Structures are given as structure tokens and as C-alpha cells.
């Protein structure tokens, strides 16, 4: 027994050491990854050019030029109050996303292990996915009033099914042949988990996290716009009522910019390393 525990501790240390090595590899490959981003930058500049062209055709009220937008953005970012709004939104999005990440992954994994549970969860997932988020917002406003809870609830309910389905698929599609192979070599439980099950499940769950995050970020703005008096969504509502198009566009730039940062600077490099083995 004691020997077993000791052995488990040793292999866990090895596992941790491997993870650190993995992290270092991600960082090492990072500059090369950034360098590959020139194409993306070129396409962004092309997009800016079209945007400016649109401004020249339709005028400042309908579509302010990129220059004016970015000037507004700079003044905005120098204002402390704007940062407060951004923080509020970030808080709501991360709490909501965090809850659905934990809940969705855990429940999805469990449901995946039981045929009955996965069968029963299907129609529920269909309902959750099919129900328009705007309807959830209305319901949440009735249930929770105007405030944090409404927004967080909507974020959870919108991103949960995506993550749940990812985790469910991950466990459902575990390869029976590989399980048998693991049996035949009498792998101990921690090796079965880390070497056989986890990489497979993770390859399903991780992309689901990424799309769940994108969904959370979109929904948080929408819910704020309708249901709260603070946060970036609310600022957007104010900009709309004052016909302040440059501010509205500057807010959109912040939203898109932060999403792009998370997706391309944080998640994509991880995904590349994690999925190296995929064809």
C-alpha cells in the first residue's frame, strides 16, 4: 500500500515535470508563431482600408473613419471610468464562463460515461442550444431583476451546453480498442487516465472551451446592453442613445480586440502544441 502511494507520488511528480516541460515548449515556439502572423496583420489592414472607404462613402455619422475611432478609443482608455466598466464586464464574463467551464466539463464527462445519461441529456442540450439567448435574458430579468445575476446567468446558460457537449463527445468517443490495449498491458489507473483517456478527452474539451469563451464574451455584452446600467454593454447602449457612433465603434474595437488577444495570443499557441499529434 505504502509502496503504491509512493509510486503514485513519483509518477505524479513526473507528470508535473512533463507539464512544465510542455509549458516551456509552448513559450519557446511562441516567437515563431507570432512571426507567422504577418498574413493575419495584412488582412486586418485590408479590412481597415475597406472601413475607411466606407467612411468616405457614407460619412462620419454612419461610419466614423478608423482614425477617429482609434482616437476616441485612446481618450476612452485614458479615462478611469471606462476601465471600471471593462472590469465589470470582465468579471461577469469570467464568473459566468468559469462556472460553465467547471459545470459543463464535469457533467459532460460524467454523462459521457453512462449511456443512459448521454441519451437523456441530448434533448435537454437541444433545448438549451436552440433557445435564443435573448429569451433567456428576458426570463433572467424577470427572475433576478437588473444586475450581475441576470448577466452571469445568461452567460452560464449560453456557454454551458457548448462545453457540456464537447466533454460528452470526448468521453463517448473514447476508443474501445485503446482501452483494451491499456487493459492488456495492465496500466495502473493513473497511467490509464493521463496516457489513454485524458489526451483524447482534452482534444474534444479544449476546442469546446474556446468556443464557449467566444460565446460568453458575446452574450455578456448583449445581456449588459439590455439588463444593466454598467459594464461595456451598458456603455454601448448609452452610445447608441446619444448617437455617438465613434464611441460605439471604439467599444466594439475593445471587445473584438480582447477576444482576438485571448484567442490568438493565449489559446491558439496552446492548441497548436496540444494537437501536434493530430493529422
Amino acid at each position, binding site marked *: 500500500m505504502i509502496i503504491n502511494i509512493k509510486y503514485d507520488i513519483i509518477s505524479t511528480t513526473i507528470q508535473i515535470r512533463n507539464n512544465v516541460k510542455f509549458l516551456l515548449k509552448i513559450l519557446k515556439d511562441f516567437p515563431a508563431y507570432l512571426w507567422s502572423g504577418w498574413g493575419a496583420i495584412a488582412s486586418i489592414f485590408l479590412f481597415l482600408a475597406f472601413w475607411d472607404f466606407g467612411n468616405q462613402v457614407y460619412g462620419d455619422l454612419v461610419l466614423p473613419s478608423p482614425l477617429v475611432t482609434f482616437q476616441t478609443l485612446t481618450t476612452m482608455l485614458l479615462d478611469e471610468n471606462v476601465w471600471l466598466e471593462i472590469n465589470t464586464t470582465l468579471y461577469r464574463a469570467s464568473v459566468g464562463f468559469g462556472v460553465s467551464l467547471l459545470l459543463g466539463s464535469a457533467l459532460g464527462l460524467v454523462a459521457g460515461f453512462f449511456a443512459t445519461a448521454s441519451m437523456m441529456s441530448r434533448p435537454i442540450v437541444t433545448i438549451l442550444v436552440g433557445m435564443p439567448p435573448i429569451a433567456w435574458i428576458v426570463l433572467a430579468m424577470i427572475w433576478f431583476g437588473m444586475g450581475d445575476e441576470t448577466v452571469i446567468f445568461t452567460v452560464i446558460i449560453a456557454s454551458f451546453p457548448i462545453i457540456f457537449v464537447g466533454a460528452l463527445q470526448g468521453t463517448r468517443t473514447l476508443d474501445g480498442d*485503446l482501452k483494451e*490495449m491499456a487493459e*492488456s498491458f*495492465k496500466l495502473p489507473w493513473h497511467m490509464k487516465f493521463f496516457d489513454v483517456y485524458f489526451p*483524447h478527452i482534452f482534444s474534444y474539451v479544449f476546442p469546446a472551451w474556446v468556443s464557449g469563451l467566444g460565446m460568453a464574451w458575446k452574450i455578456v455584452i448583449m445581456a449588459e446592453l439590455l439588463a444593466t446600467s454598467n459594464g461595456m454593454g451598458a456603455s454601448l447602449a448609452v452610445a447608441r442613445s446619444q448617437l455617438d457612433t465613434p464611441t460605439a465603434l471604439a467599444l466594439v474595437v475593445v471587445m473584438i480586440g480582447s477576444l482576438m488577444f485571448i484567442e490568438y495570443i493565449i489559446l491558439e499557441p496552446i492548441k497548436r502544441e496540444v494537437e*501536434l*499529434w493530430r493529422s
Partner: protein
Amino acid sequence: MEKLEVKNLNHHFGFTEILRDINFTLNKGEVLSIVGPSGGGKTTLMHLCADLLDVEEGSVTNTFTSSSFAFQEGRLLPWKNVIDNIALGLLAKGESKHEAIQKSQEIALRFGLEEEDFEKFPKDLSGGMKQRVSFARALVVKPSLLFLDEPFSALDIGLKKELQGILIDMISKKEISILFITHDLMEAIRLSDEILLLKADPGHIVKRFSYELTQNQRDDKYVYGESAKILQDEEIIDTFELELK
């Protein structure tokens, strides 16, 4: 004395009878082949022997100290490179990572893999290379009993001979015992001390053939000769439905 003993073994999947009254003994240092057409219950029988399926009726007694399995399709972990795949069995036995890697590299070279392949993932390997890795993974743990589930069936003739050569070498040194499943009679004759003919619906043993000559003395002429003989056997013709209709 280590041995695998199967007595009065029956097996069902639901109401379908898969195996009926199977009896045989595999002693240490011997090679026992089970031949028969596809779908005849060969794989089920092997899984019962390897403890991958629970025995329902009859008994399977395995006193071999260690065993490993080489599957028909490599069954490599797609997220592990060649060396880590080979080392899997060693790590499961509790060997240190360093030692496991070293042993795996040695056996990989012996099985015709090259150093530049070590870091490759299975998706970048050809079918033959995958099977080399699978074989290396099964043999690196130095099993006293090896289960072979048609591992040669998808290989070209050169690689087949090469891998069989390695096995024959180990057999003649009495290092290993093998339970071998195949539908290829020539393969069975080249490697086995005893061949059991398994007829389908339900799987039952209809005939046994024994070969005395040691494996490393069996040349092509012997194998072809014995194959020709066995192919005229009535039970073989009947079981494999070789008759022209």
C-alpha cells in the same frame, strides 16, 4: 512449470453461442496457433485467455509470470511518439522513466526503426512501421507469454519475414511462449508446435496438427510442403470452405 490451460471453455454473447467446449494446454516455450476462418471466435478465445473478457463457463488457468499482446492493428496511442508508445508497458510495470526510454530505444533500433523516427507520432508512420512499434512495445517487456492476434496480416512479405525471424529466434532460445491467432496456414506452420483448427458456428476445435521440427530449421521448402499437405486435409477444406462450388 508455467502454462496456459483451457478446460471445457464455453462462451456466449447474449443468446449467440460463440465458443463450445474448447480444451488445450500451452506449455512454456511452445507456440500454439489457432487457425480458422474469420468470425469463428478466434479473437474471443484469445481475449478470454488474455483476461480481457470474463470467463463464464469452463476455466482458463494462466500461470505465466508475464504476458503481453500484439494486436492486428497496431493500437498505438496517437498522442505519444514512437519511443513513448514502446515504453508504455515498461512504465506500467513500474520501471523508471529513464530506463524505460533507454530500453525502448534499443529495441526500436533492433526492430528496424531509425533514430529519426523516435520522435514521430503514429500519424506520420507507415502501416509497417506502426506494426514494428506495436511489436516492439509487446516484446520490450520480455513477456514469458505473447498473445499475437493476426499481427502479420496487413504487412508486406519482407517485413512479415523479418518480424517472424525475430520471433523464431526467440522461440528457439525457449525465451518465449506464444498463443497465435491467424487465418494464414503457412504462417501458422512456420511458427507453431501445435495448430488447432477452429470451426465456426459455434467455434469448436475440429482437429489438431503437431510439428516436431524446431522452428529455426524450417525452411521454405518444409513450410510449402507441409502447407500443401494440410490443404488436402478434409477438415481444413471443410472448415475454410475451400471446395469449388
